[in-house]
């Protein structure tokens, strides 16, 4: 996949789950556009809005907006002949990018994922993508795997680090 296309996708896609889900949205939208409407669509935003309203699967509005925002860099290269190959290549984009596997205690939601991904793209790599997984034991922080190394920076890590101070603080109550 070329750089402009991946850049357009990554601009508003921060996790592997988002990427897969939006690739499916793209596939259904283009099937709708190519095979259920007459002729080539001229206004994709209006057509996407129409698709989201008619989509029987109840596609998330945010996903629709994100796919629509990918723009010509993605849509112009896809036609009825290469639709499915293009969607498959889009899903494989996560295999070409650096992935930070992140274990968090609860579902963070889109804003939370975006916040963390933005920090990662600023401090680690501009095209890093998150693979977010739920692990209740990572409360108070997170656990992550990056570059084949796993680390635990959850509450257990901080509690171990501040154990002495905590004990001293409690002993001060005895006196």
């Amino acid at each position: 996949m070329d750089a402009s296309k991946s850049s357009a996708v990554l601009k508003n896609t921060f996790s592997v789950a988002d990427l897969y889900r939006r690739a499916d949205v793209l596939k259904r939208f283009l099937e709708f556009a190519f095979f259920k409407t007459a002729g080539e669509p001229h206004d994709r935003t209006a057509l996407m809005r129409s698709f989201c309203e008619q989509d029987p699967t109840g596609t998330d509005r945010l996903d629709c907006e994100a796919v629509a925002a990918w723009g010509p860099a993605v849509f112009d290269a896809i036609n009825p002949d290469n639709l499915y190959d293009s969607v498959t290549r889009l899903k494989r984009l996560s295999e070409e990018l650096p992935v930070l596997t992140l274990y968090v205690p609860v579902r963070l939601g889109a804003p939370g994922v975006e916040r963390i991904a933005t920090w990662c793209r600023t401090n680690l790599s501009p095209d890093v993508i998150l693979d977010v997984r739920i692990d209740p034991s990572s409360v108070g922080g997170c656990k992550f795997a990056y570059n084949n190394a796993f680390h635990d920076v959850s509450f257990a890590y901080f509690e171990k680090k501040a154990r002495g101070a905590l004990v001293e603080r409690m002993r001060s109550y005895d006196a």
Partner: protein
Amino acid sequence: MLSLSSVELLVAVSIGMAVALVVVLALQVLFGFRVQRLTAPMYEFAVSQSHAEAERIIGEAREKARSILAEAEASAAQMLAERRTDAESHSKAFADAIQRIEADAQRALAQGAAEAQRMQNASLAALAAEAQKRDQEIQEHIGRVTAEFEGLDRTVTQAATQLQASFDEKGTVAAKLFEQSLKDAAEQGIAHIGQRLDALVTQAEKDIEAYREKRARLLDEHMADLVGEATKVVLQKALRPDEHAELVEKALVEARASGLL
């Protein structure tokens, strides 16, 4: 012409040779019978002479053998009689010798027994004399020892009396010394026990303090665990997703600062 005469000559010669052969054979048969008829009586006579001579020689040989056998039997009987006579004489001599030896042995045995009896009687007499002498010496020795024992008994009794008097005298002094030493030992023991008790009390206080410190540390650790668990539960339940996201970001910042990321 010439060949015809040769064949005829050859036939004539052959016939002539055949006739000559027949004549020779006839003569041979005739003269053979005559010779046999002349030599047979002489041959029979010679054979009969030979048989007679052989019978005569055999008869003489038998007679000679018979005479030799008779001589041998007579010689053997004579020799046997001589040997039997010799054996009887030797047997008689052997019996006489045995009898003589037995008589000598009995005589020597009787003499030995008499000598032994005599020597035994002499030994017994000597032993009895020696025993009597020893018994007398022992009796004398016992008398001397008894006298010595009696003297010794008196000496021991005197020594015991003196020792008893000495003990009575020294016992009082020893008892006083012993009482004093007991008193000193008791005072030293009391002081030592006091020091020991002080040390034990000090050590016990140290142990109690160390134990209290250890238990307090354990208690603090346990309380810290409880606080941690409680914090986890509170964090899990009480925070909103954006607050969790903030904590995750802070954790990543910490990891970055620690060189983990």
